[in-house]
């Protein structure tokens, strides 16, 4: 490792330094706003520091990490998402009497893990990044120790995540045993060649790695943890799991399996197809049954991972563009939705029962409109980013003639529309007269966990949601230029 290498990984170094500085700061003196500002500055600096590897062009930093356009695009996306989550968390944590400062440090370490994941080209960095992310999430999910649901959610995340890590490690070991290397550049070709020659061990190794990834993405049938964790975790953490964690792992999946080119060959292609179909259908069908918005969004995000798999399976350059665009749209939308939930959440519990949302438009017209816009985007209705995301997924699927997947996507998004519309209409329904009389409904009530900066971030997200949905040309150009160059 040379000095230039150190200079290259400045974005990662900034994140690590920020996390350490945060911890030291807490040891010296606790200050909520201080830690918040430090975190925000760290993330912004890391975002700016991405210019360095960007200028240098496609570059390996040791064999572990590769800073190509692909990694830089996703890092930028993840850091921006983390900024939104941090701001969300500020309003959310302000009114709480637990210790609040470590929350931000954990966001930074989780982001460090994500950044390593999207730039990883080696099993070691893959695993280290994943564990950094997962361990941070263990703590973040159970952060409100006083609430029982949070601790329960923490454990429900911990057990599957630890199991999946074991699967992953074992899979890596098997692949290593067969090929003698863990670097992606060497693996490409070797693995495929191995299992096509009939090596059962390599096949099982790859399969186990897939199981590990499937757990993290909550693909069917590895989805059990998702709803409980989404429901129990604090809203900003749920946003982090739904966006950064899933996004980073999907980016990694695309890079690894894109390089290994195994997803195109049977039996992996068939397995992926079955998983994608099941994920789309089961995710949407289970979402129909939910009475809690956070649980509903959990199943909705499972279904969205299924849509992403369609784009992923299409293969080629279009698939990479489609996945990147879809993730961008999905990030904007999901952050917007959880931003509204976080802002409306009170001290005792998160604002997530569907009945809470009844008549929201009368109390918080702007937030209700924002929430409706994000739901329309999740449903893929025009004028929103989600529409173009779905368009891209379908485009990729149609180009590669994946008719089964395309039709399941169509059918399941009609099912999905049903539950999105159910929530949307709740927003605009008049509140029951009993609640009105008892004074529970105050027009234009205060936002419980709102903050000025949180409002700004929500406004930016809404603008981005519409801008990407209406005039996506520049964004597509940018993605084609960075990700697929």
């Amino acid at each position, binding site marked *: 490792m040379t000095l230039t290498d150190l200079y290259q990984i400045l974005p990662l170094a900034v994140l690590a330094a920020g996390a350490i500085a945060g911890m030291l700061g807490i040891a010296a003196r606790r200050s909520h706003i201080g830690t918040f500002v430090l975190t925000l500055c760290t993330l912004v600096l890391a975002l700016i520091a991405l210019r360095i590897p960007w200028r240098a062009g496609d570059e390996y930093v040791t064999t572990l990490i590769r800073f190509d356009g692909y990694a830089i695009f996703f890092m930028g996306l993840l850091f921006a998402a983390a900024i939104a989550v941090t701001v969300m968390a500020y309003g959310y944590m302000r009114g709480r009497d637990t210790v609040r400062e470590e929350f931000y440090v954990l966001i930074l370490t989780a982001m460090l893990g994500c950044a390593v994941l999207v730039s990883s080209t080696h099993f070691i960095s893959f695993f280290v990044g994943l564990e950094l992310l997962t361990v941070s999430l263990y703590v973040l999910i159970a952060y409100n120790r006083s609430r029982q649901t949070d601790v329960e959610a923490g454990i429900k995340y911990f057990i599957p995540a630890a199991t999946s890590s074991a699967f992953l490690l074992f899979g890596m070991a098997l692949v290593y045993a067969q090929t003698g290397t863990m670097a992606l550049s060497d693996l490409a070709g070797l693995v495929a060649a191995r299992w096509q020659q009939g090596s059962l061990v390599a096949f099982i190794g790859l399969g186990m790695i897939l199981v590990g990834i499937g757990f993290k993405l909550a693909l069917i049938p590895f989805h059990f943890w998702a709803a409980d964790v989404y429901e129990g975790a604090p809203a900003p953490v749920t946003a982090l799991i739904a966006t950064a964690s899933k996004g980073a792992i999907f980016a990694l999946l695309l890079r690894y399996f894109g390089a290994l080119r195994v997803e195109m060959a049977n039996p992996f292609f068939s397995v992926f197809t079955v998983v994608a179909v099941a994920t789309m259908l089961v995710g949407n069908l289970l979402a129909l049954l939910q009475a809690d918005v956070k649980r509903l969004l959990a199943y909705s995000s499972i279904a969205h991972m299924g849509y992403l798999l369609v784009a992923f399976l299409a293969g080629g350059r279009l698939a990479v563009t489609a996945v990147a665009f879809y993730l961008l749209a999905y990030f904007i939308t999901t952050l917007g939705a959880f931003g509204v939930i976080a802002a409306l959440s009170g001290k005792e519990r998160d604002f997530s029962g569907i009945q809470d949302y009844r008549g929201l438009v009368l109390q918080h017209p702007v937030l209700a409109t924002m929430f409706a816009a994000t739901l*329309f985007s999740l449903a893929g209705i025009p004028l929103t980013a989600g*529409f173009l995301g779905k368009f891209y997924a379908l*485009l990729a699927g*149609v180009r590669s003639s994946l008719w089964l997947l395309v039709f399941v996507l169509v059918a399941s998004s009609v099912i999905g529309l049903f539950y999105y*519309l*159910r929530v949307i209409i709740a927003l*605009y*329904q008049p509140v029951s007269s009993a609640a009105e009389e008892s004074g529970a409904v105050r027009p234009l009530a205060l936002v419980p966990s709102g903050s000025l900066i949180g409002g700004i971030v929500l406004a930016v997200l809404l603008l981005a949601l519409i801008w990407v949905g209406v005039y996506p040309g520049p964004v*597509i150009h940018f993605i084609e230029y960075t990700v697929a160059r």
Partner: protein
Amino acid sequence: MILLWLLIVTVAGAIAVWVLGWWSTTASRWATLVTLLADCVLLLALWAPQWTAQQPPPGGQWIAEFDWPWIGPLGVRFHLAADGLSLLLLALTVFLGIAAVSASWTEIQARVGAFHLCLLLTLAGIMGVFTALDLFLFYFFWELMLVPMYFLIAVWGHENRVRAAIKFFLFTQGGSLLMFVAILALYFVHGRNTGVYSFDYRQWVQAEPAGTIGWWLMLGFFVSFAVKLPVVGLHTWLPDAHTEAPTGGSVVLAGLLLKTGAYGLLRFALPLFPAASAEIAWPAMILGVTGILYGAFLAFAQPDAKRLVAYTSVSHLGFVLLGIYAGTNLALQGAIVILLAHGLSTGGLFIVVGALQERLHTRQLDELGGLWSSMPRMGGVALFLALASLGLPGLANFVGEFLVLTGTFAVSPALAAIGAVGFVLSSVYSLWLVYRVFQGPQRQGVAALDLGAREMVVFSLIIAAILWLGVYPQPVLNTARPLVESLVDSAARAEGEPSAQSQTVSFKAPAAADRLAQSDL
């Protein structure tokens, strides 16, 4: 450029109306009217040169156009263009928009600004559908008009509004996603053939994808439009949505939204897939005739006046489907006339039923009766609209339905004969409606208010338009002629191309079907 202004004015007006609504509901209503009148002026500016011009416009059938690159990397363009059919339907849109505002003048009292926002946005989406010439843009508008319509039903509708609104959205969305897949597939088919990846209508019209793929893609389009039209079997969303929507919403739904389905068939399904469309002409015509009879039977059986009117739409649009797939010059012209006539007469009937409900708080036929004595003006208007709806000669619907049947007769006398039974059935349900509501013993204790000046103005306009279309439809026929001729041409070319073999088939098919139908009779 005028087409773009039409959209801008409507959308900007929608936002202005919404903001005004916070301040004064009356201002919001008037601003909506002003917006629609401004649209009217724009349309006149577009149309007026056509009246004086002796020759057809230099650009072929297209009268106005606007083209701007929108999403460069994908070859999507913001391409609007209007021909005669678009113009006629745009005029209908603005006209019924005004009628809808007037019908909601006293009915809508809650969140007035938001109501008119949704109304104008729906109209803007519909205008976009009627003018888009880029398939991506078309789909964009096609989806977009659903969202405000959904809110119109779900927020301001009657008792079962949420269920009806969701059903409406799911049905149409399901159909349109299939069309979306077909559009994307077509994008690649044409892209691979020509090397130019775009969603441009004109390029796609030139070459029909051959073989089964063309057939499947056509089916994607057909299903989407069939849900909207609606074709029997895919129509179950319609009675619910029409019944539960507020009056203004029902007017827009029946008068305009259904027309987008017919427009889609005329503009896209037939020209893009002439050969494949010819293959399904028979099933489609049979579905059309089934719709005529089925809709009429069900309309007669409804105890709810609004539901009755809703089912008549299924019947009337059966004629449209029959006319479109009969494919002869007369039948196509007839179908286009029905589009306008049905918008006027059914829209008018919905306003009558809405006015009744506003005054008497019921739509049930067995709770109504003998209202003529207390509301002679409304009775007269209703009778006129019912007569128009049953196809009385001299009124608009007659012209359209007569042309369709005449045109169909050339293709299949049997189907034309069965379709003609629809005339009898429509007399039954139309007169039944008038009889139950306005004649017979008086069931309502209260003396209800007759139509006021505002309502009379709107009804006189509707009646005048129906009379004009019924007595002197020539200008409308002239305006639609270029499109009709190009459709007939392309169908003939599609028939001619696969050599004499397919011609003999297509000659045999009607004869065989005739014999079948005769043996049934």
